[in-house]
């Protein structure tokens, strides 16, 4: 897996590179700003880009803009965005073109190396990785009378993990239940939310996010 890193904080940039190289991953370039990042993407044609949201010159959303631009130039590029805090607008902008090969994580998740690496691999393999915090905010911001309230607490847990991009097996492991139980919950969720059942991961996430965005817009 060939990786390009865009992170303006040198200590963090080197830390990330060190971590990934120690896992025998191929970090082909580390960059400190949007322009250098796009140049590196053009030059190295990486599989995955890890991008910080706040970068020079204004330290607002340069990373998002750069990630969107990189995807435009190289549509098969997987992008994992790291953010200092949850910003709904960033997630929405990033996911507006579809959730496949995309990730949006809080920076501190990187320290949980196993989870970070599994998110990285999931994104590189065409899946999605959304930070639990982002999902949580989406869930709590929905209106009290939203259809979501028809879900049982356990179904909400399953939905949240689905929204993070986990597959059925992983969800079953996290919740200490059987895969069959997870299947049953997901069927219930889809029927309660009036969504046609489908097991494919990216369509599930897209569906979940679309539903959540919709309820958020109405709220």
């Amino acid at each position, binding site marked *: 897996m060939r990786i390009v890193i865009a992170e303006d904080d040198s200590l963090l940039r080197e830390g990330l590179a060190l971590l990934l190289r120690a*896992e025998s991953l191929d970090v082909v370039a580390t960059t400190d700003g949007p322009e250098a990042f796009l140049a590196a993407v053009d030059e190295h044609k990486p599989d995955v880009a890890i991008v910080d949201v706040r970068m020079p010159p204004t*330290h607002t959303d340069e990373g998002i803009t750069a990630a969107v631009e990189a995807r435009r130039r190289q549509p098969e590029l997987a992008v994992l965005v790291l953010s200092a805090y949850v910003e709904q607008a960033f997630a929405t902008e990033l996911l507006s073109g579809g959730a496949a090969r995309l990730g949006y994580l809080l920076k*501190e998740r990187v320290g949980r190396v196993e989870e*970070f690496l599994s998110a990285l691999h999931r994104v590189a393999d065409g899946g999605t990785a959304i930070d639990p915090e982002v999902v949580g905010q989406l869930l709590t911001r929905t209106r009290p009378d939203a259809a979501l309230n028809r879900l049982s607490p356990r179904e909400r847990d399953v939905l949240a993990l689905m929204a993070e991009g986990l597959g059925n097996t992983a969800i079953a492991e996290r919740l200490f239940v059987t895969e069959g139980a997870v299947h049953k919950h997901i069927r219930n969720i889809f029927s309660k939310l009036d969504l046609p059942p489908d097991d494919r991961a990216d369509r599930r996430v897209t569906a979940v996010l679309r539903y959540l965005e919709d309820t958020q817009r109405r709220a």
Partner: protein
Amino acid sequence: MREALEHLVGGLGTAVLAFVAALWLILVAAGCLVGVGLLFVPTALRLQRFAADRERARLSRWGNEIVGPGPAPARWRDAIRDPSVRREWRWLAWHATFGFAVGILGITLPLNAVRDGTFPLWWKLLPPADATSSLGYPVITDWVGAFGVWALGVAWIALAVGFGPALARWQARPGRRLLTLPADVDLSLRVAELTATRAAALDAHATELRRIERSLHDGTQNRLVAVTVLLGAARRALTRDPAGAEQILGRAQDAAEQALAELRTVARGILPPVLTDRGLEGALDGLAAASAVPVRIDVDVPGRCAASVEATAYFVVAEALTNVSKHSGAAHATVTVRRRNDRLTIVIGDDGHGGADEDGGSGLTGIRRRVDALDGTVTLTSPPGGPTTLTVELPCGS
């Protein structure tokens, strides 16, 4: 006594100004009868407002703040209808005559005291016919008389000490009564001014919060994330490569220490702890000790000001001293801080080559922003060749 004399002399100054303004008004009014005066109406009204505003400022420094009505009207018709202008006319009449006389009396008393108090020392030198007390009589011919005049000098001193403050109050009375705004006057200008400064304060506050947010997110948080990343890497390396893990742990510790240092900087930027521990004077002494250019600090501030005012004063001095050592080429700098009634005045001077420019992207913009937020004023004089003086006035807010 010294204070009363200061007030009387200041009052005499505004009395002369009032006299000139009144004279000019009368001349212009007379000129209006023959037509040519109309051209001078705006200047006459402006001069009147100028004199009144000087008196307002003088009285505000000394007691309750007197708020003026703003710019003067430009036409007779508006002026005659404006109650505050009419009240100023009454004040002009009072202050130009009564205020002037009281002022003269106020400075004559101490002068007479000096003259008569020292009379025995030099009366022999006078031509015999001119040897009188300061009253002009009687003519003194012997030492008994000379010491009589000396006793009169003592009496002058007693009068000056006893009546000086009362004279100063008398002189100020017409101004205090007539220059304040009547209760029903239109305060929209004052409201607009306060709204603008309040908006500026909120704006500066927001900018400040943004600065703090940014240094926390982009500085401290990044350091801590780096710590967790390195710790995560170290844990993974622990079994595979213990020596490498040890090295990574060392880097993690460095990053944690950097995070602490940044946190300290951010916290100090919000409210320097030294202010709480040692007060403004102690805090400024600390700044002076750390300055590359030798600084003489002179702080005379009884009591404490509001925390935000002290923090701003501290920031202003810190920023100004940084400027002095970076740009001025000065050999010495002075910092003087005084509290007068409800205003804190900070004067930072240096003997450098001057030419400081507020648009030069120096710390002056930051100083002005923070001072504006507290409704204070910044004055910079820095002619080419120096010296440079930065004067900042802040309302104490306590």
